[in-house]
């Protein structure tokens, strides 16, 4: 648990003080800048100039030069010395008297006119280092008197002392310390805090001052260090609260001081050093006859009875480095963080970061990765420091060199692991997680290439699934460095991705093709071929033309996806279908699929494409026909496809296709369809009925051929079919015999099934006389029903029309039947004479005219129609 925090350096040797006079002892010391004053038991004050000398090796020594010594003339020991440098005075306590001497001459200061310079009956005094009074040329002093239970507060001036306050204490005080208004006192049985301004008192804790010498030491603003029962060093602030845990001294402690972050205490034989940060004992120095321990402006000075020493703190960084060297990470960090307020902020940050990084590496070496990672993160470690531990991970192009002095003691991972492969593996796994976490943060700014390349190498080596994620995302892997590494671990697919990342799609494709072709071994993707096809779908056209051929040869069905699944995008050159068709020329199957894609999915309305597809379908059928009969099923399928296409599409060149199948008797159905397309329905039906004798197809043909036409056309087609069935003419090959019966049956079926489309009267005229009624019953039933239905429907329609007509008539009359006024003042519209009698004739629109005028007009008009509309007038 030990740290070397301090070194004991001699300052004033025995020779310089008392020579060989055995009875003379040091009683007290005071140090002010370079000036050291020593008070002895024979009532002398010695004044030295203390010079710090640093040797070439950095070792600190002190050189003391004696300036003066002065006998005070009281024959008693000099109990205490305090310098008031602003006043150039030393405050001396000797023989119960406090008085002032000049700091330079050591002469007593004579009394000024206004007041005395001596205080008598004093047991102890203290200086307020945090005075409330703002006057720089006076010093505030707390004084304990031997006779009264009081504490007096004095102001010390250059030539006088002045009592400003006196407060009573419940018991006789024996030690005092002062900060602001707060007096911290050791009384006979307890410690207390007393505010001399308000008089408020706060008990701290009991302590028997007669048994053990109390210690009351101001350590910082309103905070005191006190000797507590059981050899404890207790901290207490002005409110009477302890804000730090106590440190554990020995029972015989004489004096204590704080030199942050350490508490230094002196007992009979040792100087003990505790950390205020974790309360642990850090260092013990053997020191015999210890008598005085005091801190002066941050410098801790010790005195035995015969000599003076300085307790020189080792540089903080050295202490921390010592701790780290002993792998005491926690302590080193506590010490560093504890020193924060003593170091300038920017310097502290640099130091803190470095210590954190070193701590991280120590923990890393102990495979305590969680802690290490936390420290690396807090210390903002340059990730490359860590990567550089792993041989060959940093790319050759990296400009990184390790920081100096080194952050750790390891040459590389092998050195660290000492050949333990298990350890190496754990370290690698750690680096994988660590780099994975930091690569998206700003920690890797400026070394992204190094980090990504290292990660890629680790992934490849460890066969890690994230390799592909890394390459699929935005990354900065260095190509030149990664290629051999990926090749070494057969990560060809990944290498292809890397090429792709670097815009070398062609290289990527070549590599993958070699994998698919079995030249290279990489089992990353079992569906690599599909991947390549997908990849080509979105590649530029040059690559498509270059590598599609390979893909089509490998698997035309998949390969054609390069062309059919190509996503449509605005900013890229579109594939020209004609180019593709030309390109696919020698890949029949792919071409077929592509044409199907164009026609069926893209719905391209181009005669050429449709004809091409029809011909390909036909070729397929023809090739199957000429082949072995084994492919019966295939043939059926192929024909169905062909037939469907011939029916659905209306863009192909029918004559051309028809010409191609002219010589094939097997393709009658198709031919019928084509005739249908050409509106040669009689030919089509002839083929269907007489050559194929496929009545169902004939019916379907009629349905299909009339599907987009009006009902009259449909009727015509069905009558045509019926006609073909009933045709008993000499040229019909099926006339008479059994075949004729078959046709008649077909006719009956047709009528019974599709009766509604026929004109029943025409049918009845066509039918042979000898057919039984029973045979045609469904048809007739339906025909009669339909006819009756039609009759009734038309009657209803007629009735409705009449009523509508009546309604209209009624409305019209209502409109017309307005009164017509005739008077003697009104004139006839025809002769413009006035009416003299009530008999008038009304013209349409209710215009009254003379009867004779109308008669005249009718007579003159060519039609000689009589106007009958007349009405009675009043």
């Amino acid at each position, binding site marked *: 648990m030990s740290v070397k925090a301090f070194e004991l350096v001699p300052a004033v040797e025995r020779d310089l003080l008392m020579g060989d006079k055995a009875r003379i002892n040091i009683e007290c010391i005071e140090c002010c800048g370079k000036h050291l004053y020593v008070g002895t038991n024979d009532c002398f004050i010695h004044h030295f100039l203390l010079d710090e000398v640093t040797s070439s090796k950095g070792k600190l020594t002190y050189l003391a030069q004696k300036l003066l010594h002065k006998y005070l003339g009281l024959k008693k020991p000099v109990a205490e010395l305090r310098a008031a440098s602003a006043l150039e005075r030393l405050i001396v306590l000797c023989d119960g008297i406090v008085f002032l001497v000049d700091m330079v001459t050591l002469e007593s200061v004579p009394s000024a006119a206004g007041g005395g310079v001596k205080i008598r009956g004093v047991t102890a005094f203290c200086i307020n280092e945090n005075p409330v009074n703002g006057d720089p040329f006076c010093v505030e002093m707390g004084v304990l008197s031997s006779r009264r239970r009081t504490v007096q507060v004095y102001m010390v001036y250059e030539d006088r002392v002045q009592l400003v306050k006196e407060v009573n204490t419940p018991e006789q005080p024996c030690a005092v310390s002062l900060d602001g208004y707060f007096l911290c006192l050791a009384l006979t049985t307890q410690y207390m805090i007393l505010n001399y301004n308000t008089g408020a008192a706060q008990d701290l804790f009991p302590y028997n001052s007669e048994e053990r010498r109390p210690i009351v030491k101001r350590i910082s603003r309103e905070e005191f260090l006190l000797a*507590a029962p059981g050899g404890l060093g207790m901290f207490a*602030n002005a409110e009477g609260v302890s*804000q730090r845990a*106590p440190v554990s001294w020995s029972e015989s402690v004489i004096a204590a001081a704080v030199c942050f972050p350490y508490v230094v205490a002196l007992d009979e034989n040792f100087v003990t050093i505790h950390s205020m940060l974790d309360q642990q004992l850090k260092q013990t120095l053997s020191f015999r006859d210890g008598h005085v321990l005091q801190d002066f402006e941050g410098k801790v000075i010790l005195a035995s009875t015969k000599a003076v020493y300085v307790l020189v703190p080792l540089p903080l960084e050295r202490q921390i480095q010592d701790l780290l060297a002993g792998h005491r990470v926690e302590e080193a960090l506590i010490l560093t963080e504890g020193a924060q307020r003593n170091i300038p902020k920017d310097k502290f940050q640099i130091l803190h970061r470095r210590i954190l990084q070193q701590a991280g590496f120590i923990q890393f070496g102990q495979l305590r990765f969680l802690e290490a990672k936390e420290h690396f993160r807090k210390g903002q470690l340059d990730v490359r420091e860590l990567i550089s531990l792993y041989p060959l991970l940093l790319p050759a192009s990296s400009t990184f060199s390790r920081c100096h002095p080194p952050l750790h003691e390891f040459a590389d991972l092998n050195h660290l692991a000492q050949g333990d492969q298990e350890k190496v593996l754990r370290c690698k796994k750690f680096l994988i997680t660590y780099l994975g976490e930091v690569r998206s943060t700003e920690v890797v700014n400026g070394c992204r290439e190094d980090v990504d390349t290292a990660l890629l190498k680790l992934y490849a080596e460890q066969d890690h699934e994230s390799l592909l994620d890394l390459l699929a995302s935005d990354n900065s892997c260095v190509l030149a460095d990664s290629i051999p590494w990926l090749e070494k671990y057969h990560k060809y697919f990944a290498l292809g991705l890397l090429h792709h990342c670097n815009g070398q799609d062609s290289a990527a494709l070549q590599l993958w093709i070699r994998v698919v072709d079995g030249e290279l071994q990489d089992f990353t993707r079992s569906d690599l071929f599909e991947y390549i096809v997908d990849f080509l779908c979105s590649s530029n056209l040059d690559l498509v033309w270059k590598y599609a051929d390979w893909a089509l040869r490998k698997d035309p069905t998949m390969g054609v996806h390069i062309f059919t699944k190509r996503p449509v995008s605005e900013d890229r050159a579109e594939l020209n279908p004609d180019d593709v068709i030309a390109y696919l020329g020698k890949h029949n199957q792919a071409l077929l699929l592509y044409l199907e894609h164009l026609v069926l999915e893209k719905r391209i309305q181009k005669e050429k494409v449709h004809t091409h597809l029809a011909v390909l379908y036909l070729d397929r059928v023809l090739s199957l026909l000429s082949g072995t009969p084994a492919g019966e099923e295939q043939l059926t399928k192929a024909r169905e496809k062909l037939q469907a296409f011939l029916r659905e599409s209306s863009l192909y060149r029918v004559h051309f296709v028809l010409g191609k199948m002219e010589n094939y008797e097997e393709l009658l159905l198709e031919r019928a369809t084509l005739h249908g397309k050409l509106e040669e329905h009689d030919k089509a039906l002839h083929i269907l009925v007489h050559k194929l004798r496929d009545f169902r197809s004939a019916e379907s043909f009629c349905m299909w051929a009339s599907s987009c036409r009006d009902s009259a056309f449909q009727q015509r087609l069905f009558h045509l079919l019926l006609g073909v069935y009933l045709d008993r003419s000499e040229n019909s090959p099926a006339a008479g015999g059994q075949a004729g019966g078959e046709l008649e049956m077909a006719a009956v079926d047709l009528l019974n099934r599709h009766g509604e489309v026929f004109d029943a009267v025409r049918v009845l005229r066509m039918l042979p006389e000898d057919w039984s009624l029973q045979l045609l019953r469904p048809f007739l039933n339906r025909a009669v029903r339909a006819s009756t239905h039609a009759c009734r429907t038309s009657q209803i329609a007629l009735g409705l029309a009449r009523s509508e007509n009546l309604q209209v008539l009624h409305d019209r009359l209502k409109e017309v039947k307005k009164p017509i006024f005739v008077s003697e003042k009104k004139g006839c519209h025809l002769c413009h004479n006035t009416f003299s009698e009530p008999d008038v004739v009304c013209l349409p629109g209710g215009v009254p005219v003379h009867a004779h005028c109308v008669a005249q007009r009718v007579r003159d008009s060519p039609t000689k129609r009589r106007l009958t509309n007349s009405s009675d007038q009043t």
Partner: protein
Amino acid sequence: MKKPDVKVVLLGDMNVGKTSLLHRYMERKFKDTVSTVGGAFYLKQWGPYNISIWDTAGREQFHGLGSMYCRGAAAIILTYDVTSWQSLGELEERFLSLTDTANHDCIYALVGNKVDLTDAKAQLSQDSDGLSEDRSTAAAGDEEERTELQAAPASPVSLSGSVLRKQVTLEDAVALYGRIMRYKGLDETSKLPADKMCFETSAKTGYNVDALFETLFDLVLPSILRKRNEDKESPTVDLEEVGNKRSRSSCC
């Protein structure tokens, strides 16, 4: 070091397991501890707040320091050993008066530790984390600890039986809690219910330890908030206050 917002103090006779309780809670382990010298403290981050938890020395020698530790405390955990009637008695006789310096609204919890020795239900560790490790280290440290206890007057336990006689029942603790509340002059309405503030724990197995500390922390939250508010909105400039604050910040 961060400035603590609030203080929690553990009090109780020596060897009742104050340090072990705190250690179990903070480090999630049970390990061999030595008799605490003077006192020690931990800083616990509780949400946005810092809670300082003081572990005090139970030894008579350090008794005088107790009231200083308790000064300004927001919560005090009075700890006894369920296998020692005396340890409960000491709380009332010796430790209760130390709490006079605590805040007027201080919360008191009464905790009977070592309940794993008397109750089977507490023998199972409640920590899911690091269970096996705990078991082994606990077993190693246990021998010494208990042997030491055997000699200690506060807990005369024997190693012969795994389950010891329970000297202090929860009812005894509840009764004491009532007396403490009366001593504090708190009436029925303002005090917290005894069944909520009396715990039986085992630092060895971790039984009820988290519940104890977390209950307390939740209860002191209002105290923290009030303190923060007071610090914030002091309408008059109080020179002493200013000085106090400075001293606090400078020593952390």
